[in-house]
């Protein structure tokens, strides 16, 4: 039997972080993952992450994955891939399928970081080919480079539904509708806004009535729900689709913890049974930890911190790290984790409707119901000021833990402040030079550069673009407003692709002056 100081199950964000952290403290660490590639969900995440520098904000998920993997390897972590952990037994023994054999390993400590799996929803036709989890569609696109379908309906307006919806658009699919039974968009407003401005209609308080098709999905009917979640007769709408993506939440993959006999409990109504853990993720079994989504659904940035917290704790428990060092490190990591738990999307606010920002601004009901801010609402927020000359327009209207925009501006035009969830404030006196760094730094693609009057009755608008192919300079296309409606013709005057922008391209177009504060998307083709 091979023994390790620490066995980690799952080579995703939390598992790799746990392993790297522990190995850096001298533990002999092995990580087991059933997949052919390490990184868990990180390598599917082609979008830029939120948070601050310490959370690797504005880096894309796959780059964070690469960095993390490199760190783990440099620390001497052994990573076993295609290694299915079949069971977790007494005395922290695991049985692992490795190729055509099974092998037994024991750990003095074990960290379970097995993540989560997608929830499903039943409706007539839900078993037809073409109905799939949003995560599955994301794997098809971003790992296997396969388009899940041509015409897609997304059910679920949480961050997964919104992010994958956007990625479907990037992959060249048509997103016919974004649907959610809840009356409000569940995910970040900025994620919703970048989908809505491409013209995707949002149907809140709607659910799927049925999927049509014999051998595969050929259509879908949705309907509006009443306060008791029952479909209102006559409210049905039908779409031709070949794919239906379901993003109705995740369930922690707790099988191994259950096998080991850990105590599980429902911490909050509807959250499912989760391991009962200490502050550092230790379960009811001494030396057995849970980190990342398996201990409660959050996102990758939190998962990485939870992994490190469990990793350093294991190092302390086994006497590899001095107690003072462990305490200091835990303080740093916990502060970083707490920052991610701030704001209106904090775990403590789950299921609650937050109507005002911490600063006292009204949260836009349009944003929550339709996915975009109304034209007249936008100037109410501190990141938006209508001033002469080029200036950023920061359409960031919810308290989310994120601040790369603040660091990106060489002229210090943008301030988030010490509280990471505060809305960014634009200071018009600082003197914007139009460098565009803020646009590329904003993970929510919510910052634009606008010059409301460049003469000849025109305004210039610079938008972030992550759609290929990029337009040509001089190309005329349609200007779309935040709602995705065509509002005029826009001519591209500049396309900037700089390495430091990390694949976010800056497209500048001109529109009639009166559209400068309205046009937020550029689409190829005539303005019809």
């Amino acid at each position, binding site marked *: 039997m091979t023994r390790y100081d620490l066995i980690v199950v799952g080579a995703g964000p939390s598992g790799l972080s746990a392993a790297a952290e522990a190995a850096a403290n001298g533990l002999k660490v092995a990580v087991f993952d059933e997949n052919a590639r390490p990184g868990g969900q990180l390598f599917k995440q082609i979008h830029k992450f939120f948070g601050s520098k310490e959370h690797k904000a504005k880096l894309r998920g796959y780059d964070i994955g690469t960095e993390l993997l490199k760190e783990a390897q440099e620390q001497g972590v052994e990573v076993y891939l295609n290694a*299915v952990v079949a069971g977790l037994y007494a005395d922290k023994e695991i*049985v692992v399928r490795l190729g055509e054999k*099974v*092998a*037994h390993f024991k750990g003095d400590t074990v960290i379970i970081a097995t993540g989560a799996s997608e*929830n499903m929803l039943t409706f007539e036709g839900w078993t037809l080919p073409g109905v799939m989890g949003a995560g599955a569609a994301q794997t098809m696109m971003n790992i296997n480079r396969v388009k899940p379908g041509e015409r897609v309906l997304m059910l679920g307006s949480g961050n997964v539904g919104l992010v994958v919806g956007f990625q479907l658009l990037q992959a060249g699919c048509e997103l016919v509708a974004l649907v959610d039974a809840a009356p409000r968009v569940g995910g970040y407003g900025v994620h919703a806004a970048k989908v809505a401005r491409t013209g995707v209609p949002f149907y809140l308080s709607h659910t799927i009535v049925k999927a049509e098709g014999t051998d595969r999905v050929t259509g879908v009917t949705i309907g509006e729900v009443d306060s008791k979640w029952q479909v209102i007769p006559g409210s049905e709408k039908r779409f031709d689709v070949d794919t239906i993506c379901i993003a109705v939440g995740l369930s922690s993959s*707790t099988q191994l913890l259950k096998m080991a006999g850990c105590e599980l409990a429902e911490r909050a109504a*509807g959250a499912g049974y989760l391991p009962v853990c200490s502050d550092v993720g230790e379960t009811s079994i001494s030396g057995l930890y849970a980190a990342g989504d398996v201990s409660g659904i959050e996102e990758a940035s939190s998962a990485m911190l939870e992994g490190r917290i469990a990793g350093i704790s294991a190092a302390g428990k086994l006497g590899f790290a001095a107690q003072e060092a462990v305490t200091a490190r835990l303080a740093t990591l916990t502060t970083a984790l707490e920052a991610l738990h701030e704001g209106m999307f904090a775990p403590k606010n789950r299921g609650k409707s937050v109507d005002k920002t911490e600063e006292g601004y009204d949260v836009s009901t349009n944003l929550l119901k339709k996915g975009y801010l109304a034209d007249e609402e936008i100037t109410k927020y501190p990141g938006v000021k209508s001033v002469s000359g080029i200036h950023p327009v920061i359409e960031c209207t919810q308290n989310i833990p994120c601040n790369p925009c603040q660091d990106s501006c060489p002229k210090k035009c943008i301030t988030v402040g010490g509280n990471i969830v505060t809305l960014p404030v634009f200071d018009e006196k600082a003197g914007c030079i139009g460098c565009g760094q803020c646009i590329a730094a904003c993970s929510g693609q919510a910052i634009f550069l606008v010059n409301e009057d460049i003469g000849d009755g025109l305004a210039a608008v610079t938008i972030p673009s992550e759609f290929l192919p990029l337009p040509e300079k001089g190309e005329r296309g349609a200007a779309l407003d935040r709602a995705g409606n065509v509002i005029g013709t826009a001519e591209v005057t500049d396309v900037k692709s700089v390495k430091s922008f990390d694949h976010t391209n800056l497209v500048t177009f001109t529109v009639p002056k009166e559209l400068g504060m309205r046009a937020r998307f550029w689409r190829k083709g005539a303005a019809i």
Partner: protein
Amino acid sequence: MSANDRSREIGEFTAAPDDDMIVCRCEEVTKGEIRRAIHDGMFNAHEVRRFLRCGMGLCQGQTCARLVKAIVARELGVSQGELEDATGRAPARPIEMRIFASERGRDE
């Protein structure tokens, strides 16, 4: 732990339009079968599973466990939190007998 009187009134079984809908894909168990089993006294997802095999197929309930629990909760008029989760059993993924039989380091 709470006492659960299996003779308590939960109302008559009434047919519903979506009773034909498959809930457990691996074992092809329908919503109607699950609801009927509940009215036959299977007052939790464990008993429903043992009675109908839903969640006992290749995926071991990874998809349907949550769905079955929701149906049980609704039929009994209790919250899902009052119903315990499905158990976790090895192997976490199906493994061929010949592979289980060959342990690394064992003389062949």
